[in-house]
């Protein structure tokens, strides 16, 4: 034995798969006749989507008064849900872009899936800022539309930054996702037997031939988009946090918000990917590709980001005390002990305490437990946004204006309705698009590595002894 033992990465794809079986495994889902269970899932999703549409319709008809908003608390569930959904929408691009640039090959199993989730989450998020305004019929005024009055939006306003940040993020995420889909769409086109599928997939496959030149262009485009998307992962939630941080309300006006929001977004995004992945891989039998190792890695990220969020919570308290500003001090004391203490402690438990269980390897490899924690984390992150949005407004500077905010049924129904939008989109995605990036997964299989495959023996050099030792050790 040499001095240093080389411990190889566990295989990213389990089971005895070759390229063909991977292709078959993934594309079968799309090319098989629609299973009955899909319809069974689509039914409640569509019902909830209908609920969302009804809620929005009633909202526009009656006015924002149907929500529980009041005078000090001008933003309630709508903004909470917006920030929450945007936060969830962080995981996809992070996994695709940042992990791609860092050459984290394990991302390939979940990137398509996570990106899809991102796009749908951002769609759900985008609903809220649009509908929460009093006069949705003139919402286009937030865009810099040239007009005869030379009336531009106010570029000082973080809400305007939000419009640009979220729409840019959505556009780049969609493009990135679509570019990644092109080779797989071509695969589906080629495997499709009926005419409609052939044409439809063919149309979106952009005439992909799999030529070396096509691959070269594809890799470059993918790299550029990854480069573009990376800063957006950080910027979008930074700017969402500016909605709060740029204002002057105690508990909002803090410089810690951008990193704290980004960490929180990754935290909740990974939790949501896990929630969906655990269900999907079970139903579609993708355990060989979405393995327990992936789950473990993601759990570690959840634990790390959860701790970062927890650290931010404590720093907020410290800075409030250290700043000496009485309103800052008061709002943090009120959060922990005031009328919304219940929400604060739910948040603390879900976000700070619950992810700490992932210090234990056994727990972070437990599927059931991971599923449970992933849900707890998303509840916690929802409450984080609740605590930030509502408590600060509810009890700000002038005690005479303090008032308690509670949601109405319409607040709840609108929120629940966005799950309808999300799952409808997600089910359509699962049905019609490859949920796993086939081409990318193949690249991370041993077969995809030209150095590890022996053509003569047709064997893979998987044994430790056969792996070339690092040169430094030899010397």
């Amino acid at each position, binding site marked *: 034995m040499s001095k240093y033992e080389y411990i190889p990465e566990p295989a990213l794809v389990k089971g005895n798969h070759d390229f063909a079986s991977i292709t078959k495994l993934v594309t079968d889902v799309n090319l098989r006749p629609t299973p009955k269970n899909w319809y069974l899932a689509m039914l409640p999703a569509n019902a909830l989507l209908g609920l969302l549409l009804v809620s929005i319709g009633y909202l526009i008809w009656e*006015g924002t008064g149907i929500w529980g908003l009041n*005078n000090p608390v001008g933003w309630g569930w709508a903004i909470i849900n917006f920030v929450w959904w945007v936060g969830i929408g962080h995981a996809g691009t992070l996994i695709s872009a940042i992990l791609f640039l860092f050459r984290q090959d394990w991302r390939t199993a979940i990137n398509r899936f996570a990106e899809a989730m991102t796009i749908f989450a951002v769609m759900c998020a985008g609903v809220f800022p649009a509908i*929460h305004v009093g006069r949705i019929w003139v919402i286009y005024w937030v865009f810099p539309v040239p007009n005869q009055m030379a009336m531009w939006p106010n570029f000082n306003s973080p809400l305007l930054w939000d419009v640009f940040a979220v729409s840019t993020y959505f556009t780049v995420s969609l493009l990135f996702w679509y570019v990644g889909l092109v080779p797989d769409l071509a695969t589906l086109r080629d495997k499709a037997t009926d005419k409609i599928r052939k044409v439809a997939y063919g149309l979106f496959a952009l005439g992909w031939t799999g030529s070396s030149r096509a691959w070269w262009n594809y890799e470059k485009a993918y790299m550029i988009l990854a480069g573009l998307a990376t800063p957006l992962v950080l910027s979008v939630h930074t700017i969402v946090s500016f909605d709060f941080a740029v204002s002057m309300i105690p508990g909002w006006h803090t410089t810690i918000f951008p990193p704290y929001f980004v960490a929180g977004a990754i935290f909740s995004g990974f939790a949501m990917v896990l929630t969906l992945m655990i269900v999907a891989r079970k139903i579609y039998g993708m355990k060989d590709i979405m393995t327990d190792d992936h789950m473990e890695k993601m759990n570690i990220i959840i634990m790390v980001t959860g701790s970062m969020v927890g650290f931010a919570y404590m720093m907020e308290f410290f800075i409030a005390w250290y700043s000496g500003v009485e309103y800052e001090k008061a709002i943090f004391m009120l959060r922990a002990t005031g009328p919304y203490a219940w929400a604060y402690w739910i948040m603390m438990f879900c976000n700070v305490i619950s992810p700490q269980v992932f210090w234990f390897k056994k727990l972070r490899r437990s599927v059931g437990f991971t599923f449970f924690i992933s849900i707890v984390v998303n509840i916690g992150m929802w409450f984080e946004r609740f605590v930030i949005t509502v408590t600060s407004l509810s009890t700000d500077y*002038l005690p005479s204006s303090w008032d308690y905010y509670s949601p109405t049924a319409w607040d709840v129904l609108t929120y629940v309705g966005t799950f309808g939008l999300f799952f409808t989109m997600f089910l359509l995605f699962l049905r019609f698009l490859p949920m796993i990036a086939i081409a990318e997964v193949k690249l991370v299989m041993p077969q995809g590595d030209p150095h590890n495959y022996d053509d003569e023996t047709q064997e893979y050099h998987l044994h430790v002894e056969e792996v070339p030792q690092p040169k430094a050790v030899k010397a």
Partner: protein
Amino acid sequence: MSELTQKTYWKSLNELAQNKEYEKFVEREFPENATELSDGFSRKGFLRVMGASIALAGFAACRRPVQKILPYSKQPEDIVPGIPLFYASAMPFQGNLTGLVVENHEGRPTKVEGNDLHPASGGNTNAYHQASILEMYDPDRSKFPVRNGAKSSTTDFHSFVADYFADTNKRVAFISEANSSPTYNGLKEEALNRFDNAEWVTYEPFGEDNAIEGNNIAFGRRVRTHYNFTNADIIVSLDDDFLAPTHPNNVEYAKQVTFRRKVTSQQDTMNRIYSVENGFTITGSYADHRKRVKASEMADFANALAATLSSRISGLNSFASVNNKFTGSEFITVLADDLASNAGRSAVSLGFDYAPEVHAVVAAINSALDNYGTAVNLLQVPHFDNQNNKTAFANLVSSISDGNFDAVVIIGANPALTAPADLNFTEALSGADEVFHLSTYNDETAKTASWHVARSHYLEAWGDGYSFSGARAVIQPQIQPLHDSLSEIEFLGAITNAGKISGYDMVRETFSSFYSRNFENRWLDILHDGIDVTDGFSTANRSARNVSPAPSTTINEIEVVIKPDNSVYDGRFANLGWLQELPDPITKITWDNVALLSPATAESLGISTDDYLGKAKQPVLNIAVNGTPIKLAAWVQPGHADDSITVHTGYGREGIGRVADVSSESSQLLDPETTSGGVNVYPIRTSSSMLFAQAGVSVTGEKYPIACVQDHHSLEGRDMYRQATLAKYKEKADYASFESIHKYAVPGMAEAAELGEDQPISLFNEQTAVEGEPQWGMAIDLNACFGCGVCIIACQSENNIPVIGKREVERGREMHWIRNDRYYMGDKENPQAVHQPVPCMHCELAPCEQVCPVAATTHSDDGMNQMTYNRCIGTRYCANNCPFKVRRFNFFNYPKEYLTSGEDPDIIQMAMNPEVTVRFIGVMEKCTYCVQRVNREKISAKIETGSPKPADGTVQTACQQACPADAIYFGDLTDENSEVTKMKRNERNYLMLEELNVRPRTSYIAKLTNPNPALVKETNEEYAQ
């Protein structure tokens, strides 16, 4: 004057509205004849219609008799469309007039202001005056006479009474509300002369009857006590809430009291106010010392005060032997010392409803202190009845019940609701053949009357009368009666003269009798000035009698005290949404009455006294007086006397209107799930318990939601409200500065000084004052404000602020642009209550402007933070980012519910100010510093002088103009000599949340208190803790 001229004197809305052509005209966007023009139709036709519509503008307000509607080919003198005209009038309340100036837009009155020539107003008003405009336009007002439940007309009424009262042997009982009108009282004489078997009783549910009786005991004369608080260094209010609008002379008194608390330099002095009361009154909150005493112990307290004074001054010997729980107490000893050393410069007052014997004691105290002639006056009021009206009323009712009268004529009053419960007024009426009733609403009494006649509002009928202090004025109508109604003089004239005489003729005749020569010119002056003479009442001769101590009325158990409500009074204002939604000055409750009780009493009943945010459902109490129970939600009132419960009248109405009615189904304003409109407490008010009674109280276990606009009552040690004692101010003039309070400079100031700036630096673009433009600013004197809330109603009236209903207030969506924050300080059992009006601060670095994504809120060149409704998309970010939380959002289409519901929405729409946009759903709104008034004056200043800077004082905001305490200063900050600049130079001037560097244009002048050093236990905190 002939009938013809009178009739055409007013070219009324009503007449025009009945004109088919005009109806079509208003319904159509373009006048019918306007389209005819293109058809080559005669231009004359068009002009005729246009002329008619503009005659509505012109001639309704015009004073000259006009016989025909003329085409608008020549602009009538003084009429410029869009420019309002102002006419003097006066509003009667409890028989006392307050002089007003009414703003008219194209012939319709839209806003009421005080008349500064009239002593009862001095240019200011109270909430009732402000809301009276809404009363006239109230769509639920009685619109036509009702005969036995069926619609009738004034013509039918006239012919009926001419016939019915032709027989002068008819036995007629007249029950009238208090009325000081010389015309009316002339008619009263006439009526009593004409009908041999007539009796007349003046009936007011709350009023000065007992005070008059008290003076009768003390001086042998039925005279009025009128205070001149300007001359009082020491004011002792024994549960006399003379600052509240429930007092008939509150505007004048408020001006007097606050005048003596205007401190502009360290050399100034202040009066000292002691308040002894069971509940927390407005006067109590303004007092330097407030003592909690049960209402039933007030007689003891007055006796004890007289007894304690008897050893210090002469004239109170009969009290020397008094010995009760108050004699010898520290408070009363100090109070007596203070009074004795300020003899001749003090005033002791007592709430009207206390027993006459207690009033006599107070009169004896004032007499012994030699206060008469300086701070206290006795006025000989010619129209006072020579009888005790309370007993006379009771006797009359039983007499009616016995069938001793053929007809009962009830003028104005609503005794079916308000009469003492034991008199069984409604049943008693069945003893008469005919009951004639004149009232503004089809109210409880109207429903029992065989003839109900709709009453003309004071803004639409001629009248006259005296103020509380005796100033004589004419009530000048501003518009032809909107409905088929009669004024009280027309009504009484019809009965007395059995003929149809116009109110105008009667009033003119009355006044011509005062002037033997040159009447015509005098008459025009009276109409123009809104005042005739100020000394209509002569000072009564005073010969003090020996007054003996008042009998003790102590109730050892829990007492219930019945008071008129600050918003709806005895119920007469119950259908006015503005007043229903006006937060009570102390409790901040809207839309309901509650049972107020002290924290200790609440705990003894098992009611939680915890403060928490959110929709509070209050436990319901069962309060029984002599076996008659009422159920009322409990409300813990810090500072309330223990073992005492205060309830307010006027709520719990049925069949009055959409606003007043309890859980009215027809009203969209009110939530059908949560009842509103409060509880009628008159059932427990009997002849023997007009003010207080022993009550059996239990908690029912039910809960009732209360819409309160302020959930948190403590300042949490924050510095928004700053105050000190006068003594402290003399030591340290800048006690209210940020540095004095926090012991460090405003953050950023040191750095700014290094940079050579005079303000901390900001990330955002600073607003630069435009050269030549005025820069508007406001200062609010907290030392003057006593929290009455008239600013809120004045603002509501000026700025078309909608009424949103109890449900929406409960959700915390009140729309008032100016609110009055009330904080409690100090002892939980007996705290100080302070008031702080909060309008928009018009910050120079406005945080709302920075965050609006569509730039809907921006800064004007003259330094105002403006709101562009048309641009607003309703993100509410501005409201969130406002540290003062003064922005208001249209969560629903409030104006739609408010202005288009009901069968006759055109009427309520007329109450809107045409100069202010009615806001639509989904837009933000807030205080504009009355930009429409500012710009009106800027334009006229520019036309006249070329500069857009109006002279100081020409622009008044609605809140400023209404405020009887003159607590609000507004003007141009570039003018070194403007009142507001002077106030802002005062050392006590401070900015709320100065450390945020938003640079508010509205600042506050810190409060001062003037406590008696002998009663100050420890040094007062420098500012609220």
